[in-house]
């Protein structure tokens, strides 16, 4: 709630709207007790008095009635009508929308076509028709305005409901024995309610305008009772001679509607989950770097990370996603980086090229060197010239990384032309060659298809082709086969293996799957809670893991051919990286942990094989 208020008031216009609206609202509520003159008493001797006349702060109207008093009573009436109409239209429209969205099919079709028909009429015509049937009067104007706005709510809420109705919790509710009505009321309504409330609050402004329109035409409130619209209507005849009589209610309508709209926009933005997570804040072009010292290179390697640390700063919390990770890749080598979700393996990979979103990401220490050149803190132009040309990425979901509206061939050509000034036709030829290199069947025809026309495996081939477009030295592959079926996964892994052997590519392969690491990688590094806990040649690590975490993780993964059995699970959960315990992060889940494990810093020791443990498993 506090977060919501903070987000809302960060938007100055919304805050101004809230202040103006609450002042008007409080005044309208207090109108009956304020020392105002009677709004209906006429004084034919004091007609059209100008504002600031004695006894009449805002002057008087054509019948000598006090304008200030009429304005306050009129505002009160208009606000009440607006709120009631919004609630009425919102309730009926939402009910219609939820029913249509939940049942779908024919019900949905019939209801929504009827709603479309209503929407097809100009709203004022429809309102006029309704008032013509029911007769003039404020109540009938209210009904007309509410009825005219039902389609807006119906459409809006139907859209929300369609999204919700296919969620699994609705199926779960059906299996729990809930009937349709119960599901509508207890499962769908609570989830749609925030949207309904926001839509209602933002439409009060329209409702007031529309009622005012009807009253202006003499179809709404009847004399002597006045809302803001009928005040305007009465003042129309004196618009030239006494403009203040129309300006006073006009200004009030403007203030109310403007403040409601500004506040409504603010509320909508503040409740948008994307804004909350900071996604709408534009990330910087490269990750923020805040490091005190730069460690010297500790060894050779085409790409080497030295004590790389990356954190996420969210509010007062500091998430230590990656802590002092050192890793080296030689040309033609494939290194696996393995860990569970939240272990920091992806953040490590993204940090290399400054691709961690900032804010909230910050690289707080260490270096990432490509042939000796430190990439951390390198100028953005330099990073950009290296991204894709020397170091390329392959991501998990190619549907999310390929642009949905451009053809495959154009996207590949663009990737090439980013780093090589060649002609379009030349780039297209190279794109075709790339698709052939990744064994895309029928490559020539596939240049002119859109990403959604390809299967997952084919899309990942395009992703790989794009990574290869500028003949990089290093490919960082972040779970490239996790979303694929096993038979397709095997094809993609074989392709990556072939490419690295043929081209001498260095691959940093991020995964959670030991089987994949075992088949593809020369060396493997195991991450837990942001640190590397073990590293070494793949065969040795998998055959005889030194760190208890590695050992237990390998043991709890079922292996094909081992038959039916009980798996030795690791109890507990990985620690949250904003509250890392002292000592070894795995100690609370480790059977071998002693008091020494929970104290001080445990270092990663060893040469060819390294581990971060004081009670390692026996290693041959």
């Amino acid at each position, binding site marked *: 709630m506090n977060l919501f208020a903070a987000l809302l008031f960060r938007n100055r216009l919304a805050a101004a709207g809230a202040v103006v609206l609450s002042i008007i609202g409080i005044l309208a509520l207090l109108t009956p007790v304020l020392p105002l003159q009677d709004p209906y008493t006429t004084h034919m001797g004091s007609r059209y008095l100008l504002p600031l006349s004695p006894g009449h702060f805002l002057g008087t109207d054509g019948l000598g009635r006090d304008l200030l008093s009429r304005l306050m009573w009129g505002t009160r009436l208009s606000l009440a009508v607006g709120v009631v109409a919004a609630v009425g239209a919102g309730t009926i429209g939402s009910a219609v929308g939820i029913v249509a969205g939940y049942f779908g099919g024919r019900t949905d079709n019939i209801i929504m076509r009827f709603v479309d028909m209503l929407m097809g009429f100009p709203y004022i015509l429809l309102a006029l028709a309704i008032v013509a049937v029911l007769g003039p009067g404020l109540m009938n104007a209210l009904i007309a305005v509410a009825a005219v706005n039902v389609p807006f709510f119906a459409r809006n809420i139907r859209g929300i409901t369609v999204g919700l109705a296919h969620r699994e919790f609705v199926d779960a509710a059906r299996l729990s*024995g809930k009937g349709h009505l119960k599901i509508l009321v207890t499962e769908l309504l609570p*989830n749609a309610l925030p949207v309904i409330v926001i839509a209602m609050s933002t439409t009060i402004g329209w409702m007031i305008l529309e009622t005012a329109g009807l009253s202006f035409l003499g179809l709404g409130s009847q004399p002597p009772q006045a809302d803001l619209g009928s005040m305007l209507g009465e003042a129309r005849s004196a618009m030239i001679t006494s403009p203040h009589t129309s300006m006073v209610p006009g200004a009030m309508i403007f203030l109310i509607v403007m403040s409601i709209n500004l506040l409504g926009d603010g509320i909508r933005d503040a409740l948008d989950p994307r804004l909350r997570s900071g996604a709408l804040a534009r990330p910087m072009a490269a990750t923020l770097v805040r490091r005190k010292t730069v460690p010297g290179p500790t060894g050779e390697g085409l790409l080497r990370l030295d004590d790389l640390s990356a954190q996420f700063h969210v509010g007062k919390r500091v998430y230590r996603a990656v802590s002092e990770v050192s890793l080296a890749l030689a040309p033609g080598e494939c290194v696996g980086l393995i860990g569970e979700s939240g272990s920091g393996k992806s953040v490590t990979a993204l940090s290399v090229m400054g691709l961690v979103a900032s804010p909230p990401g910050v690289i707080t220490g260490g270096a990432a060197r490509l042939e000796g050149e430190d990439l951390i803190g390198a100028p953005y132009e330099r990073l950009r010239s290296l991204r894709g040309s020397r170091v390329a990425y392959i991501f998990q979901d190619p549907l999310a990384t390929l642009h949905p509206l451009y053809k495959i061939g154009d996207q590949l050509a663009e990737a090439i032309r980013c780093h090589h000034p060649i002609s379009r036709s030349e780039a297209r030829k190279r794109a075709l060659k790339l698709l052939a290199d990744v064994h895309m069947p029928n490559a020539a025809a596939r240049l002119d298809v859109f990403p959604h026309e390809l299967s997952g495996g084919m899309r990942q081939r395009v992703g790989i082709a794009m990574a290869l477009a500028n003949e990089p030295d290093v490919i960082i592959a972040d779970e490239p086969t996790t979303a694929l079926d096993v038979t397709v996964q095997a094809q993609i*892994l074989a392709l990556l293996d072939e490419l690295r052997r043929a081209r001498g590519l260095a691959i940093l392969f991020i995964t959670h799957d030991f089987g994949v690491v*075992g088949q593809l990688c020369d060396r493997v590094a195991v991450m837990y809670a942001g640190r590397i806990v073990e590293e070494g040649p793949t065969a040795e690590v998998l055959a005889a893991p030194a760190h208890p975490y590695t050992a237990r993780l390998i043991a709890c993964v*079922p292996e094909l051919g081992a038959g*039916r059995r009980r*798996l030795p699970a690791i*109890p507990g959960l990985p620690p949250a990286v904003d509250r890392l315990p002292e000592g070894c992060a795995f100690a609370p889940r480790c059977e071998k942990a002693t008091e020494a494990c929970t104290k001080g810093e445990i270092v990663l020791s060893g040469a060819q094989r390294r581990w971060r443990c004081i009670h390692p498993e026996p290693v041959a």
Partner: protein
Amino acid sequence: MTLALKTEALAKRFPAGRRLLGGPRTFVHAVRPVTLEVRQGETLGVVGESGCGKSTLARMLVGLLAPSEGRIEIEGRALDKADPVAFGKLIQYVFQDPQSSLNPRKTIRAILEAPLRNLHGMGRAARETRIAELLAAVNLREEFLDRYPHEFSGGQAQRIGIARALAATPRILVLDEPVSALDVSVQAQVLNLLADLKAEFGLTYIFISHDLAVVEAVSDRIAVLYFGSVVEEGPAERVFARPRHPYTQLLARSAPAVGRPLAPGGEGELPDPLDPPPGCAFAGRCPKATDICRHTAPALRPIEGDQLAACHQPL
């Protein structure tokens, strides 16, 4: 041994390419006639890749989706109408994504109470006791009851999903990829919990997954689905160790395993569901395919003992 579940030629087709007036242009056969028998107390593993119809099959089994053809019998009782309320007391479903299967605006208590109230009409006191039993069964603390789903990790949320399924006191659980959204260390915890619950409550499981190793570790028998049909069925210890259908062999070879070289099992993917091939759906990828495979669809038949395969030239 008595049968817990039996399907006879169960099939589902979805209309595709609807015309403006009149019927649909064509049908997509998500599940082609499937005949399965699951014995009491058994775990039947169902394996297949995406698009093979395994989730459609599961949704038909629990009554969420009406079959186009065929029938379902649970413990000898035919369930003709797809009605989750009738099915709910006999067979329950555990969803793949534990978070999205829990209503974000309901407390855990409200989620667990729903089946007790709606399916069994339990009073308040009876519900309290039953919920305490359920939480103990899935190793969750009672203080979690008044929290909301987003406060739980994936493994905890899946335990809640399992507790909800158990609340209906079903005889059979359909587990649709119950651990594939979980990390491996948590995956083992949940698999072991499922094994314990099965023994404790005498349940029958239908365990659906794309992960061959997981299925092999939990199942008594395994059915392999390809393109909507069962292509192989048999005892868990034999199906992957000694596959009879070339597709099963391809699956088993493709599964990444430590210490085995990369063996891509040929190129190619699923056929186009809008334009299915006339013969065996796997013929286009099969190294052994001959003319008969391309023209006549093979029927599921016993190859050796209780191992069945739908193949003209079984391995």
